[in-house]
């Protein structure tokens, strides 16, 4: 039993949506961070990113049987499969690497179409059920409300992934290469690091992140025919709102989107359809023109 300090009566009904918003936001962050890498380092708009997430989601639905071992297996298989799909995508992109981002974006869209079709062919057209580990299947009491235990654990795990990602980008050699490639890709190439390898590595990392998000987030945004589109849209909005490349900004934007999608809908049900738009407009008003110039993975 986990008890969080009880709020006053006025915020009490909104505690559960707010908590849901954190879980949702962290899930979107893990998914979107892969897109930030693709975009920031390889300068590729990866329209197949949602499909990479869906690979993880379908893996979770197929492998999870309520035990811990199946969760570990699903996580390993999902991450590897999505990373492999990322490497495949990098391979497909190699012949058009010198072309422009228009061709590259169209190529990734073709891969997304074909990949989505293959997933539906392989796993069936219905949205599959996802079984979380039995130990996490129940609910716990948070400030007098019942809340799904899985989501609470997910919040912790996703926060650990986010922290690990931050440390990997700031402190490891691979992270340094990634940041260097964002700043000056030609100089990195001059120093003897093959741009093709960086692209493959970045797409593999993006695939791994999306696959991990897909497996762990399957009980929250489940696999289905619309999953790829939903995740791609949420990731795009988060990346744009977060200032196109800043990891801290992406995290803040993801949490804001999560709260908008849950708490915002609970508070203002009539305005729900426009809240995402309003968020984009609000960020625009604050940041004015800072968007296009500010591109750094920090």
């Amino acid at each position, binding site marked *: 039993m986990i008890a969080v300090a009880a709020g006053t009566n006025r915020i009490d009904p909104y505690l559960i949506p707010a908590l849901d918003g954190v879980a949702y936001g962290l899930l979107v962050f893990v998914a979107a961070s892969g897109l930030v890498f693709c975009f920031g380092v390889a300068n590729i708009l990866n329209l197949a990113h949602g499909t990479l997430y869906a690979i993880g989601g379908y893996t979770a639905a197929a492998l999870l049987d309520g035990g811990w071992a199946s969760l570990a297996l699903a996580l390993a298989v999902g991450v590897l499969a999505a990373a492999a799909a990322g490497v495949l995508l990098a391979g497909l992109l190699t012949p058009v690497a010198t072309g422009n981002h228009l061709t590259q974006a*169209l190529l990734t869209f073709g891969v997304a179409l*074909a990949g989505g*079709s293959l997933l539906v062919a392989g796993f069936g057209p219905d949205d599959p059920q996802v079984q979380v580990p039995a130990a996490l299947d129940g609910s716990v009491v948070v400030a007098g409300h019942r809340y799904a235990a899985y989501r609470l654990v997910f919040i912790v795990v996703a926060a650990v992934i986010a922290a690990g990602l931050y440390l990997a980008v700031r402190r490891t050699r691979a992270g340094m290469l990634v940041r260097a490639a964002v700043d000056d890709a030609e100089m990195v190439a001059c120093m003897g690091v093959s741009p093709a390898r960086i692209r493959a590595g970045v797409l593999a990392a993006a695939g791994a992140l999306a696959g991990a998000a897909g497996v762990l987030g399957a009980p929250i945004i489940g696999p289905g025919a619309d999953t790829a589109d939903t995740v791609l849209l949420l990731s795009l909005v988060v990346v744009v709102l977060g200032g196109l490349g800043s990891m801290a900004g992406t995290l803040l934007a993801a949490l804001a989107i999560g709260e908008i999608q849950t708490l915002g809908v609970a508070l203002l049900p009539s305005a729900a359809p426009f809240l995402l738009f309003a968020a984009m407009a609000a960020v625009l008003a604050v940041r004015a023109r800072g968007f296009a110039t500010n591109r750094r993975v920090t």
Partner: protein
Amino acid sequence: MRDEVIRRVRGAVAALVLAGLVVAPWAVDDYTAAILARTLALGLVGVSVALLTGVAGMPTLGQTAPYAAGAYACAVLGSQISDVGVVQLAVAAGAGAVLAALTVPLVVPARGVIVLMITLAIGELVVTVLGRWRSVTGGTDGLAGISPVRPFWGLPVLANDQARYLYTLVVVATLVGAVLLLLRTRFGLLLRAGRDDETRLRASGHRVPLHLSGAHIAAGAIAGAAGSLLVVAQQYISPADFGFDTSALLLLGVVIGGTASVGGALVGAALVIAVRDWLFGVLPGHAPLVLGALFVATVYLLPTGVNRVRGARVRLRPPTAPPSRPDAPAARDHAPVPELHA
């Protein structure tokens, strides 16, 4: 010489296509005529994509947003105001232009792949709003039973698919003609110049963001008008008509058509949409797979059709520009000589 041949071939193809389009409703059945009318409307959206992507150098994946705004404005507002097609077109174009104007501050400061991202986000957000704003848009069920229109005051109501197709064709031809005229003006010249060398144009005192905003709003109005045509052609609209796959298909069509060519965009977009409709007819289960593979194959086959995007052009210049410069004065020097001898 080669340019001359290409120009003639292009003219002949355009004439043939136009003649085919005019006689089409008598040669095909009602269902095909309705599909053709919808394809024409999408082709007009393709023209607006080409205006932004090829001419202004702002690659866009979000022209479905003004297209959807126009279609819903026409279905919800326009049909209440009047059943005259021209009025509904104006309402739809206005809605598209307003949406484009509202998104100008998001889109215009960005360049290159960032434009693709932002426009895609806008397009997807519009579809999300359409799906959730049930009281007005009917949600994901869409709007059906839209009353038929009469093209102009005093004319009869468009009662069958042939008439609706011909109305669509006339409107598309008029608007494409207007775009072609617009591109011949100073405004079109400035747009192209901004695409090719923005820094130089800015340095010479031109307000490039203003031109781009104008192009964005004009493209929005065109896409909005196309939305009105979709309502006429289909008499039913739902958010599925404006999905992100439609944007990507249109962009591919525009790329096939040569990016900066308005006629090419119309033909390319219509071709891609026709292939999609045909594939979904013959391969109900695996159409997306084949379509995806075709996408990849097309991108490999047509890598050079897409170099005219802002930024990418600069890289292409150095190999071609220096040899042509010494040649140019030489040719001019030689030119008068035969005249002197003669």
